[in-house]
């Protein structure tokens, strides 16, 4: 009974996706589409599997993921401690806030030519753009997390004789984890979006480059394959962070007594 209801739930939640895929399949069968621009669904699926089982696409996938991971990690190491300091000290926050507000709206793609100029085409310039797009949600979420730590926790730690360092390690860091993970999830989503665009502008490797190259060489099925791979990576990354987020967030509704 339970498995039946979870199946129904799964079908309902993905009904639009199934409807669109069904529509694509049917119009392909009926021959209503120009297969040069919109290949049939079975053809796209078959080709995507083929791409995934050849080393060619994996090189591009690893290239994109390694840049995302490096830029993202760098932003975590910088934005989280800065966020903790800004959230803890109002004076530091007020000193840095205007500067951050000034640079925050600058589109990362507008800066990409500058990064290429500074770091050259390749890993470093892509790392810079991923860092740029990741640090903002991380910083703001960390600041929000620190500012929303319950006074009760700080008070109780004080009464138990906690030092400032203990306060930071035992109260502040554990309390902000859910906020930081949400920031990480948002940052990761933005990083994936921007890396594809950056690889299309100035790169000789990566999924973005693969898609652009497929369009230039008119391999439309490959182009669709690349887009599907991006969607799958996005879904997987989001799922991992959602699971992590869920584990760290405390449900306050369940009672046992």
């Amino acid at each position, binding site marked *: 009974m339970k498995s039946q209801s979870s199946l129904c739930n799964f079908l309902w939640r993905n009904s639009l996706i199934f409807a669109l895929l069904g529509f694509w399949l049917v119009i392909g069968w009926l021959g209503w589409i120009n297969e040069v621009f919109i290949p049939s669904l079975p053809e796209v699926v078959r080709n995507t599997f083929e791409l995934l089982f050849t080393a060619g696409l994996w090189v591009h996938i690893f290239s994109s993921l390694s840049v995302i991971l490096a830029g993202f990690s760098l932003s975590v190491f910088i934005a989280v401690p800065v966020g903790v300091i800004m959230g803890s000290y109002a004076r530091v926050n007020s000193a840095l806030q205007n500067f951050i507000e000034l640079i925050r709206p600058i589109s990362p793609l507008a800066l990409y030519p500058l990064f290429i100029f500074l770091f050259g085409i390749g890993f470093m310039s892509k790392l810079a753009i991923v860092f740029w797009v990741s640090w903002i949600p991380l910083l703001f979420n960390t600041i929000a997390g620190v500012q929303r730590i319950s006074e*009760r*926790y700080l008070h*109780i*730690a*004080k*009464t*138990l004789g*906690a030092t400032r360092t*203990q306060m930071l390690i035992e109260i502040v860091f554990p309390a902000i984890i859910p906020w930081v993970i949400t920031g990480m999830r948002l940052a990761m989503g933005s990083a994936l979006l921007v890396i594809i665009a950056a690889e299309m502008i100035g790169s000789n490797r990566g999924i973005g480059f693969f898609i652009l190259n497929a369009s230039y060489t008119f391999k439309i099925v490959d182009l669709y394959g690349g887009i599907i791979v991006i969607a799958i990576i996005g879904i997987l990354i989001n799922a991992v962070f959602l699971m992590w987020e869920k584990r760290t967030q*405390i449900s306050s509704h369940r009672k046992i007594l």
Partner: protein
Amino acid sequence: MIKIARLSKSFPDENHGDSVCVFNNFNLQIASKELLVIFGPSGCGKSTLLNIITGTESYDDGIINGLQDTKRIGFVSQHNSLLPWLKVIDNVAFGLKLQGVNKVQRQQAAHKLLEEMGLTRYSDFYPHQLSGGMSQLVSFARAVACRAEIMLMDEPFSSLDFIVRNKLQDTVLKIHKNWNLTTIFVTHQLDEALYLADRIVALSAGNPTKIISEFDTRGVKDKISEHFYHLQCQLLKCYQ
């Protein structure tokens, strides 16, 4: 013995730009191993007094003696202040962790205390899995576990129902006795004050707060006795 002498404390009044005097030349003594109940209406400064004793609130003038080591002060507030990311056992051992006690020793101490309070089966639970009463009991265990000599309790059972409150009051009395604590218990529940206290200090509602009466209630533990009822009436009369 804790001795508070000539204590003065004012708060800035943000609405009128003036300051509100909570204590002016306030004096109070608490004997060692005494269970003192501070009784008074809301807003009379009971919590402020406890915060001053814990050192989390500053005061303008006065002397507080008998608090050589603030790490020996345990505090239980009226709100659930358990750390939600720690299990019950780790919450109880938290104060010991801050004191640098190694993991094995602090887990042993926490287990022993949970056993004494009848909470062993909840040791691996997270705070959100506990009822309000259990949470307060675990907060109490955490305060006791850090080898507190002075226990400050700020209306810890105010949000609990009558039956749970009665049960927890007995636990407080038991732990107070077994651990040789000096306890200051703040409440505005008449029956709770009389049942728990060795001595009750009744505070006035006005600013500055003053002690309007003191009652020795040692041995008054029968809630349906005439003596208990008589003392309740006397305490009520103080506020009429």
